């Protein structure tokens, strides 16, 4: 965790924590695109549907895949600087942002139980963020 290469930590745009945030926003966007692409193509070939390959018929799926490639590069960069056991739990900020985005943008309702889930994830994120902050100081 304390590799010598971390001494010259990139700052500003190339700060790993900023890149992790970018990664999360990218995931939120492509998850929504993937769902839209999959729904569009669900009526195609029953025989091949289980592989998910029919999803390629939708341009939304291709857009999502392009975004995934970009996000993968960002994610690899994040992993180069942050331990997986910290970066991955933090990346699940996605699970807070997706329902809230649906609530605000799509005016979808959120049940009390779902709000509890969102609260739990936020508490979990805060707990994980503490060692992450300490790691940030050490970097």
């Amino acid at each position: 965790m304390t590799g010598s290469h971390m001494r010259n930590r990139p700052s500003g745009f190339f700060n790993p924590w900023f890149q992790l945030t970018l990664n999360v926003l990218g995931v939120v966007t492509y998850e929504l695109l993937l769902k839209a692409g999959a729904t569009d193509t669900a009526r195609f070939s029953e025989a091949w549907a289980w592989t998910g390959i029919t999803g390629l018929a939708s341009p939304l799926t291709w857009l999502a895949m392009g975004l995934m490639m970009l996000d993968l590069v960002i994610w690899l960069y994040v992993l180069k600087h942050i331990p997986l056991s910290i970066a991955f739990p933090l990346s699940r900020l996605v699970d807070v942002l997706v329902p809230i985005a649906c609530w605000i943008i799509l005016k979808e309702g959120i049940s009390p139980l779902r709000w509890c889930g969102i609260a739990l994830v936020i508490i979990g994120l805060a707990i994980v963020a503490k060692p992450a902050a300490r790691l940030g100081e050490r970097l």
Partner: protein
Amino acid sequence: MTWPALILILIWLVTFVAGQLFFKRAMELLGPSGVRNRKTMSILGAGIFSMTISFFLNLGLLQRFDLSYLYPFQGLSVIIITVAAAVVLHEKLTLRLTIGAILITLGVALVSTT
């Protein structure tokens, strides 16, 4: 849920977790100067292969189930990856980190309730 669906979800989970571990290992090997060698590239390739399978399985599952239905399984990946990173990659796993990961897992499962 039928058993083939459960098996597909399980394979999806395993390929996803394996992919993340391959990625992290490859990035560890990449080192400070970013020197590319055959071993690093094969591990990165294994990660991309694993993630590709996971991606198409995810797409296939999304065609048949709601995203909200698949969310609890996605949540499960948090605690599995955190523990796997400690066991396989020897990352430091504190009690605090474990509790945080468990809360996130439970939270994600609750978020999926309708």
